[in-house]
């Protein structure tokens, strides 16, 4: 009979990381996914910790850890696991030819499409801002017909920020696209994958570049997880590029996902798309198999362990009905205020934490699910990513960080 050492449910950053780490340890891993998830359209930066719950800014993620509550996922796994996870990620990216930069020492402040700075930690080389800080002449590039991206907004915002008083120059690159639909960063990234796109970009930018110029550009420097497009353009134009943080669809997430999928497949992870995990067969406090429910029938897949990385309310891992809130696959308890009025604060833009954002599954230090008294509910189940209780990733800017760290820990422990 076929069996897996571990079934990972969920193909986001937490699930993929867990699958890669477990497979790297020689485990037979099956990864069940349902849809492509937000990783494919998200920013692809690993934000570890940008703000604390009281809205104070964190300038060094490492220093910020000590100020987190003990039920925060970071506190659960401990700082050594975090350091190891970061190192693991940086090494993997480098080996895959898609190196990331950054460390737990300092927060990286990335320019956004609206001219603000967003805190992050580990970022692709196309988002390395060290050269931008030093540059005097900054070309801010946009593209004709590109939706929701205005170079003048980037210039207006940045030039108000300390350290960003520079000589800005706006350039709008003409793509020559025809056809009726909106132009997206993905269209442009795919165009820049081609020699024709690179040539057009080179010609139109060339006359604006001075020695030492830095070009701020939306994330369009190729759709694949490598730096070929950036390297070619930087070499041809003798300048440096910095990609901005934008709204979905951000190509940076697509590249990261492609890299992780490549890595997982190389390690022999068996990926099952559209395998909608529905429930599990249990024997006492152990899960014996995971059952998928598709439109035709249910299928049971035997396993020694399960890593649950199905996401929160948005990802569908945690479901709130009018009367209940529950975890969707293993029916694990989810603690939440009984009075729904207490789930949210009405002051939307006050920078205050939203109570609902911290609703999730409680775990022990091995990430196994526990009840209200702290008793382990399922011995061979580990929880990773937004399934977990105790953190407000939106406020903290810690979403991908928690996914990476807990995915790493789960993959190491299972």
């Amino acid at each position, binding site marked *: *009979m076929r069996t897996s050492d571990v079934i990972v449910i969920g193909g986001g950053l937490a699930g993929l990381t867990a699958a890669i780490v477990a497979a790297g340890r020689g485990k037979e891993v099956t990864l069940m996914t349902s849809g492509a998830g937000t990783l494919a359209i998200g920013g692809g930066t690993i934000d570890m910790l940008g703000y604390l719950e009281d809205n104070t800014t964190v300038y060094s993620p490492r220093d910020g850890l000590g100020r987190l509550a003990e039920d925060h996922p970071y506190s659960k796994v401990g700082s050594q696991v975090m350091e190891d996870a970061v190192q693991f990620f940086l090494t993997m990216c480098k080996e895959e030819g898609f190196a990331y930069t950054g460390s737990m020492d300092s927060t990286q402040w990335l320019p956004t499409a609206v001219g603000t700075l967003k805190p992050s930690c580990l970022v692709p080389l196309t988002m390395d801002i060290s050269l931008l800080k030093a540059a005097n002449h900054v070309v801010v590039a946009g593209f004709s017909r590109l939706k929701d991206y205005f170079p003048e907004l980037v210039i207006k915002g940045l030039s108000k920020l300390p350290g960003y008083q520079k000589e800005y120059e706006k350039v709008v690159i003409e793509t020559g696209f025809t*056809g*009726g639909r909106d132009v997206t960063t993905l269209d442009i990234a795919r165009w820049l994958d081609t020699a024709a796109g690179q040539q057009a970009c080179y010609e139109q930018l060339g006359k604006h570049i001075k020695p030492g110029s830095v070009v701020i550009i939306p994330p369009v420097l190729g759709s694949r997880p490598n730096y070929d497009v950036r390297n070619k353009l930087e070499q041809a134009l003798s300048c440096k590029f910095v990609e901005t943080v934008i709204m979905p*669809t951000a190509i940076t997430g697509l590249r990261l996902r492609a890299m992780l999928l490549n890595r997982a497949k190389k390690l022999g992870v068996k990926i099952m798309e559209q395998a909608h995990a529905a429930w599990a067969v249990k024997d006492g406090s152990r899960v014996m198999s995971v059952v998928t*429910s598709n439109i*035709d*029938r249910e299928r049971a897949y035997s396993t020694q362990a399960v890593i649950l990385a199905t996401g929160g309310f948005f990802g569908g891992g945690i479901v709130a009905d009018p009367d209940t809130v529950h975890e969707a696959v293993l029916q694990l308890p989810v603690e939440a205020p009984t009075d729904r009025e207490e789930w949210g604060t009405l002051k939307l833009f006050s920078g205050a934490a939203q109570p609902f954002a911290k609703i999730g599954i409680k775990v022990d230090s091995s990430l196994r699910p526990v009840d209200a008294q702290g008793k382990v509910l399922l011995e061979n189940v580990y929880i990773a990513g937004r399934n977990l209780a105790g953190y407000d990733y939106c406020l903290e800017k810690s979403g991908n960080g928690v996914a990476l760290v807990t995915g790493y820990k789960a993959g190491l422990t299972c």
Partner: protein
Amino acid sequence: MKKHHYNPDSCTTCTACVVHCPVTQAVREFRGPKLAGPAGERFRLSEDDYDAALEYCSNCKNCDISCPSRVPISTLNMKAKAKYYKTHKQSLRDWILSHGEQMAKMASMTPGLANMGMNNFLSRAIMKRVGISDKAPLPAYASEPFIKQFKKIKQQSFANKVVFYPGCFISFNQPEVGLDVVAVLQANQFEVIVPEEAVCCGSPLVVNGFMDEAEANARKNVAILKKYVELGYSVITACTSCGLMLKQEYQELFEINEQERVAARIYDISEFLLELYDEGRLNTNFVKQAGRYLYHAPCHLRVQGIGRPGLELVKMLPGIEVTDADAGCCGISGNYGFKDDKYDIAMSVGSNLFETIKASGVTSVLSECGTCRLQIAHGAKVKTAHPITIVRKAYGI
């Protein structure tokens, strides 16, 4: 069992489908699955609004595969197309491409003549006039349809019986694949029943808006297969598009009494054999054979949520080296790539797969889908085979 739901408002407009749509990548004229499907549906619910961009959707289902909210986007597109063609007439080209079964039945009376007629300069020119590409890899007709060849087999009788639904491609173009299925099942002590009265699954009809005819076929097939399911038999397919139609798209498109009972018993041949393996019943007396292959997972398999059973099975065979190409859609998507105005799109969609195959240096590619195999042979200039053919060889039969 969770059913698909048709509320377009389940779409959160996250754009995951647009990112993964191979046609969107190939042509700027297509507005993409999000706008053509769930967003367009909102307009269509309120007024008769047909978006010509719908013609670009190939029903490859990569949108459904990528959707995190389980919206059957491609099926919304197909339903919208069907609504439009209730009051508009399809082209002769689309009629021809959707009625392969009728065409094949006529052709199989004189297959030699038909093949000669199809593949000469003059008839390809005539086909081009109606809108079928003169470059497309149209399949040749077999000298004898599957059912005739099947009837000549003297099967060993076994208590365990299964139904095999061959579908049009195996029936009329590559019956040898069907014979491999029968041989492998016999080697596993199953007696095979082929219901002669079963008709085309309807997949080629759905994509060109012949929805009433597709439903008639669905009703007929469900009625036939239900009789066997009631006897406790499983139904086996060796074409992933037929399988998807029988188990999923019938339920998404039509209300047919008790069709879910049939759907629950539809098996891909490799999935069926792997279940036998799990039960310790698979005949594993495989002889060692040499062979190096790439495997291409058809999109219509990937959307089924059963992984890659064909690949898994072939990996069990001694001496065989097989790698998952994992290079996306081949582009053909049923009869889409045969169309003159879609040929270049289909080739562009498949280009990543073709390049991957060429770079691998393998000379033979395995895939369950007949039209994927045609397109791969055409685009990458390699031999192709159904995984079950390699399994049969491993039995030395």
